[in-house]
C-alpha cells in the first residue's frame, strides 16, 4: 500500500500552514548547519562548552560501560586461560628464570646510570600524574579521533596535558569539562608528536593516520635507517610530552620513514593517567634554548610549530636519557 503522503494537507488551513512552516524550518536547518559548520571550521574551540557539558552528563553511564567492558574482556581471557594453562605455565617459568637474571643486570645498570647522571648534574624528572581516570568514550564513528576521560577540571586536568596509559602515550587533552575531558588521540591526523628511536635517538615526527597507525617522518634525509620492530619514544622536543614516553613500534617501512603501530591502543587501555605538561625551561639542569618563543609547551598547539627547534631540543633530549 502506498503510504499516505504528508504533502496532501487537504483544506485545513492549520495543517497547510504547519506543513509549510515545517519545510521552511527544514531548509533553515540546512542554512544554520552550514553557518555553524563554517564558524567551527575557522574556530575549533567554538562549541567547547557545549561538548564538555554533553560529555559531563554522560560520565556516569560511560564509567558503568567502561567497567563492564573491562570485566567482559577479563571473562574472555579467563575462559581462554583454561585451554592453554599448561604450555603457558611452562613458558612463564622459563621467562621468570630469564627475567631474574635480567633484573640483576638492570639493577646494576640503573645504579651506573644514576652515578653517571650525578656526574653530569642531571636531575631525575619523573612526572607525577595529576589524576587517573577511565577512558569512557571515543568518537568511534568519525574519522576524527577523540576520546573522553572521566576526569576534568575538578581533578586539576587542564588543556594540553599529556594522557598516558601503562603502555604508553594515548594523546593530549584538548577540551576540559567539570568531570570529563576530551582527548585528541595520537592517531588523529591533527596530532603530531616529536619522537626519537629508543635505541639511538634518531629524531622523527609521528603524525596520526586516523586508522590506528602513525606515520613516522625522519628529520634527516639519508638512507632510511629504520627497521621493522624499532621502538619510538617521545623526545620531549618543544615541551608538552615527557621525554621517554613510549609511543609506537615500526610495522612497515616507507621510502622516507615508516608506518608504526601505536603501543597504547585506546581499545585496550581502560585506565589512563593525566600528566602535567613537560616544560623544558622549568628543568634547570638543561641548557637554555635560544628564544623563549621556541618553547611554548603551555600552548595547546605547540606541536605544530615545534619543528623549528626540534634539532636543538632533540639533542637536549638525548642528554636527558
Amino acid at each position, binding site marked *: 500500500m*502506498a*503510504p499516505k*503522503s*504528508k*504533502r496532501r494537507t487537504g483544506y485545513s488551513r492549520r495543517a497547510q500552514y504547519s506543513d509549510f512552516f*515545517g519545510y521552511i*524550518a*527544514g*531548509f*533553515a*536547518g*540546512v542554512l*544554520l*548547519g*552550514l*553557518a*555553524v*559548520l*563554517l*564558524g*567551527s*571550521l575557522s574556530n*575549533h574551540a567554538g*562549541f567547547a562548552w*557545549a*561538548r564538555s557539558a*554533553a*560529555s559531563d552528563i*554522560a560520565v556516569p*553511564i560511560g564509567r558503568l*560501560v567502561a567497567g563492564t*567492558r573491562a570485566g567482559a574482556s577479563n571473562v574472555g581471557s579467563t575462559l581462554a586461560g583454561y585451554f592453554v594453562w599448561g604450555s603457558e605455565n611452562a613458558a612463564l617459568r622459563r621467562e621468570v628464570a630469564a627475567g631474574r637474571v635480567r633484573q640483576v643486570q638492570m639493577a646494576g645498570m640503573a645504579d651506573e646510570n644514576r652515578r653517571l647522571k650525578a656526574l653530569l648534574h642531571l636531575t631525575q624528572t619523573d612526572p607525577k600524574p595529576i589524576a587517573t581516570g577511565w*577512558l*569512557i*568514550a*571515543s*568518537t*568511534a*564513528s*568519525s*574519522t*576524527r*579521533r*577523540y*576520546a*573522553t576521560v572521566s576526569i576534568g577540571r575538578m581533578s586539576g586536568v587542564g588543556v594540553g596535558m599529556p594522557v598516558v596509559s601503562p603502555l604508553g602515550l594515548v594523546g593530549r587533552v584538548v577540551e576540559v569539562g567539570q568531570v570529563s575531558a576530551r582527548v585528541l*588521540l595520537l*592517531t*588523529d*591526523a*591533527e596530532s603530531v608528536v616529536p619522537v626519537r628511536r629508543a635505541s639511538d635517538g634518531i629524531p622523527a615526527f609521528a603524525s*596520526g593516520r*586516523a*586508522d*590506528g597507525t602513525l606515520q613516522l617522518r625522519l628529520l634527516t634525509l639519508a638512507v632510511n635507517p629504520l627497521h621493522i620492530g624499532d621502538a619510538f619514544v617521545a623526545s620531549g622536543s618543544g615541551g608538552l610530552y615527557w621525554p621517554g614516553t613510549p609511543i609506537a613500534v615500526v610495522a612497515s617501512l616507507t621510502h622516507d620513514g615508516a608506518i608504526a603501530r*601505536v603501543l597504547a*591502543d*585506546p*581499545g585496550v*587501555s581502560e585506565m589512563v593517567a593525566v600528566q602535567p605538561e613537560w616544560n623544558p625551561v622549568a628543568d634547570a639542569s638543561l641548557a637554555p634554548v635560544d628564544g623563549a618563543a621556541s618553547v611554548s609547551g603551555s600552548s595547546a598547539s605547540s606541536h605544530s610549530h615545534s619543528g623549528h627547534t626540534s634539532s636543538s631540543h632533540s639533542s637536549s633530549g638525548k642528554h636527558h636519557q
Partner: protein
Amino acid sequence: MIPLVPRKSAGKRSRRFTRAPSPVLAYLTPWATIAIASYIASMPTATSAPLMPPLGFLVLLSWRQLHPGLLPVWAGLPLGFVDDLVSGQPMGSGILTWSIAMIALDVIEFRWPWRNFSIEWAVAAGLIATYIIIAALIAQMAGGGFTLLLILPQLILSALLYPVVARGVARADSFRLTRFWAFG
C-alpha cells in the same frame, strides 16, 4: 488531554480497550531513541579507527521510514546538534547533513510512494554511504585523515546493520504506543 485516572476493577480484556498510550511517550520516544543512539555510538569501545556505524543517523532514517510524518522535516536540526556534541565531527556537520537527509527522504517519499522494505533498505544504504563520505570530507577540512580505505569497512557495516536497527526501531515503536493510561 486524556484523563489520567487509573481504572481499578477492570478485566484484562476491557483494560485493553479502555487504555490509551501516554502522549509524552508517544511523542518523546523517537527523539529520545535517536539522541541515545548518538551517545551509544561512542560508548562500547575506544577504537583507534572509525568502525562504528553512525547509529544516531541510522535510527533517524529508520524512524523516518517507518513513520513518515512522525518526525517533522526540521528534526535534523536539533538531533544533528546533539550528534555533533558527541560524534567528534566539527560542530554544524550533523545539523547540515541530517537536515539535508530529512529533506531528501521527503523528496524520495513524494517521488516514489510505492515502497517495500528492500527499497527502503537501498534508499537508506545510499543515504548512509553519502552521509559517511560527506562527514569524512568535512572532518578532513577540520584536520582529520581521509582515505576511501579508511571508511570502507564502516560503510559496509552500516549498510548491513540497517535492517537490524529498523527492527529495533519497530520494537521501540510498539513501546511508544504502549497503553498505559485508563480512561472512562
